[in-house]
């Protein structure tokens, strides 16, 4: 490798900066995952358990506590709502991001306005939008509902992400494939359904991953728009202020497992598609 030619190089051919940066990287990953792993471990304590180490006993106590005790709030209901809400938001995010991605492939008059509206929606403070939406609902006399106003509020956050990911995905799409389909007599809809969507499938799954996880964890924009019934992050928020038992950690473990299942399913699907493609294309 070229790195061997310059700098102070040791036996393995790596400059000293490699080891320094490797150490930084390892420390970063440790700091990233370490605290999370601590609370997962602490959530498995028994009834004597506290908020800090050392670990006291080993049991499912706090998980049972979480789903049966009234004082920890309506965890089951909010969990249920959050998953349903995330599914709705994901479906809309995928469809709308895909269409917007198609639009932005070529310039059209006024495209800059749409683009900067989207960036604005992304960087605007979530609580400001939340309060604005809440006031607007009061003004027009509509009650906030988690399955209505919260969907829109969350889309104002997930869509800009989805469209940005779609941009990255579509920039690698070769227009020639589409032209070839038209030349063979395919209609516009057939071309999208049979050529564009299958080729872009890994990217579309990635957009879905963003849609689901960003909605499932969204807090500020949902705060004033969910109405009287809490979503899971709102429930966790009120728990951080009232609950001082490891059930809080148990909730953290449960919600992270759900996140990891979704991430695993999406990344697995992407990997599977890529692998099937690789095996189908004959090697040159």
């Amino acid at each position: 490798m070229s790195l061997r030619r310059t700098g102070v190089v040791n036996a393995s051919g790596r400059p000293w900066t490699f080891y320094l940066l490797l150490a930084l990287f390892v420390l970063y990953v440790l700091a990233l995952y370490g605290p999370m792993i601590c609370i997962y471990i602490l959530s498995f304590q028994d009834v004597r358990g506290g908020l800090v180490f050392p670990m006291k006993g080993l049991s499912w106590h706090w998980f049972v506590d979480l789903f049966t005790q009234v004082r920890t709030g309506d965890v089951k209901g909010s969990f249920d709502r959050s998953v349903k809400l995330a599914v709705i938001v994901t479906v809309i995010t995928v469809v709308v991001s895909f269409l917007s991605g198609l639009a932005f492939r070529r310039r059209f008059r006024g495209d800059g306005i749409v683009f900067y509206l989207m960036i604005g929606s992304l960087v605007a403070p979530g609580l400001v939008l939340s309060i604005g939406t809440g006031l607007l609902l009061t003004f027009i006399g509509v009650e906030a509902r988690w399955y209505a106003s919260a969907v829109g509020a969350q889309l104002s956050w997930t869509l800009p992400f989805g469209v940005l990911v779609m941009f990255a995905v579509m920039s690698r799409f070769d227009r020639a494939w589409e032209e070839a389909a038209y030349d063979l007599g395919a209609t516009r809809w057939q071309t999208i359904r049979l050529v564009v969507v299958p080729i872009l499938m890994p990217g579309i799954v990635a957009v879905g991953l963003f849609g689901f996880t960003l909605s499932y964890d969204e807090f500020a924009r949902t705060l004033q728009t969910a109405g009287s019934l809490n979503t899971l992050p709102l429930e966790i928020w009120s728990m951080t202020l009232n609950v001082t038992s490891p059930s809080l950690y148990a909730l953290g473990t449960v919600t992270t497992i759900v996140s990891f299942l979704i991430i695993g399913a999406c990344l697995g699907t992407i990997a599977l598609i890529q692998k099937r493609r690789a095996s189908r294309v004959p090697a040159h």
Partner: protein
Amino acid sequence: MAARASMAGWLYVSPLLMVLVPFFVAPILVVIAASFLESDGFGGVLPNVTLANYVGIFTSKLTLNLYAETIKFTLLTWLFALIIGFWVAYFLVFHVRSPLLAIGLFLLCTVPFWTSNIIRMISWIPLLGKEGLINMSLIRVRLVREPLEFLLFSPFSVVVAYVHQLTIFMIVPIFNAMARIDKRVVEAARDAGASRLDIMRHIVVPLSKNGIALGSIFVVSIVMGDFFVVKVMSGGGSASVVGAFYEDIGVLQYPTAAASAVVLTIVVTLLVTAILRSVDVRKEITQ
């Protein structure tokens, strides 16, 4: 033809606009409108146009301190996220030799982004607390005699939680920018006798500038617009601009909260615009 292309473009983005107009444009306009109204003191507003809410913000020493504190947290978080994010991205792009391993390690860094922020924030409590893992370990190895109080519920833990959450927003765009640097350019520079410091100064940093700008926009806008990290991690010792107007909402003081929200949004917009001036974000994102 151009007109037809424009029509098709607008048709395809119309669903996007159907979300952005009612849930971004309209709420912002409502907040702006509310900020000029008078509160009736009972959660409603009187239809009198007034500037009193704004005068209140700019004459209150408390509010100005809030802004100073929020900007202090923003700068500290930005600085640490930039330093860590830049070097992690650099390590992945220029030091990890197998592209597959680099992508794998990159994914390892991004996975926590898809999990709950609140949970990741509270996960520092068993580590940083007075009886937390760090204090207990320090006492055991006799480095300190008393537990360090500044670790949790302090400005320190606020910055730790922010950097923990937001460094990923630096890593991803900087990684993307660096991955696009043609390795032959680096080779050529080396062949021409450039030192590694020269390569860093004249090639890597200038070509990752756009990534840095993009990451900075995310970090700055998120910290400025946040309130729950400050509220929980400072243990009540610090406050934030957003936290303050959230409390106004709690006592139904909508106009004062709205005015504060407008000022904050303007400050964030100015900061983002300043960053945007140095980089063509649209070109950076769409290519």
